[in-house]
């Protein structure tokens, strides 16, 4: 399972990823790692992100409820991705004149930006993104140049 990652060991963080995913496989869904990740829900990072991979691509999913798709900006450069945008508070916009009393305001609004390093360079032209039910899903295909090639040995 982790064999495929061996090619990616250019940076130490990738080793960390491998260790974490091995832990994940050893302990399953209820590992301390996953509890730690669950705890992260309470911190202020926005949006929260998951990343999936196989030999050909990385798929990034982000929890971005209540955004207009056109407000989301995605920038990919080599092996780095940035997601940015703004979550507006529609109430403030619509009802400036009317009297509103807030009893609770837990939903964050305002500008956000997050960046991630990917395990490989990306074929920038082929990146696709979809926004559905408040979940942003970005497919980042691995650059053809970086895919492992099989070299045939010819007999002379």
């Amino acid at each position: 399972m982790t064999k495929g990652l061996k090619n990616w060991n250019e940076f130490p963080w990738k080793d960390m990823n491998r260790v974490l995913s091995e832990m994940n496989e050893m302990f399953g869904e209820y590992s301390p790692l996953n509890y730690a990740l669950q705890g992260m829900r309470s911190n202020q990072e926005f949006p929260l992100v998951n990343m999936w991979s196989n030999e050909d691509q990385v798929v990034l999913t982000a929890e971005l409820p209540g955004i207009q798709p056109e407000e989301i900006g995605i920038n990919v450069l080599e092996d780095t991705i940035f997601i940015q945008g703004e979550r507006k508070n529609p109430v403030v916009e619509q009802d400036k004149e009317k009297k509103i009393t807030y009893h609770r305001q837990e939903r964050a609004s305002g500008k956000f930006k997050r960046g991630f390093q990917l395990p490989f360079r990306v074929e920038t032209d082929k990146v696709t993104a979809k926004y559905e039910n408040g979940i942003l899903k970005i497919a980042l295909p691995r650059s053809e140049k970086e895919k492992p090639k099989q070299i045939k040995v010819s007999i002379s």
Partner: protein
Amino acid sequence: MTNEMAKKNPAQEIERTHTTPVFNPSVDIYEKENELVFVVDMPGVTEKDVNIQFENWILTITGHVEPKPLEGHRLFYGEYKEGDYRRSFSIPEEIDVEKIEASVKNGVVSIVLPKSPKPQARKIPVKIS
């Protein structure tokens, strides 16, 4: 009143039979002259996955998300888990239960609870016997 009762009857808490996580969604609650509005973040939820119940002055909002691992892929970095959402609120205002409206858009559930008209002060004539 409702709050106190809830505290004294913990046995009423519904126990779950399966192990998918349940999350506390973030919520905004605001009040206008004629209505009370709830805005709840439930990423991944569609209108058919949302259940809203109003009973004994308690509003319960539930959203169901079936965790879907990406086929043929492996999660190598995770910040959030998928699962259900649930939150309950006690509603102190008089609410016109028949006119509660809810909608879902881009993973956000909005619920509007119209206030019922305040009962008019009624002067009770006292007869002289």
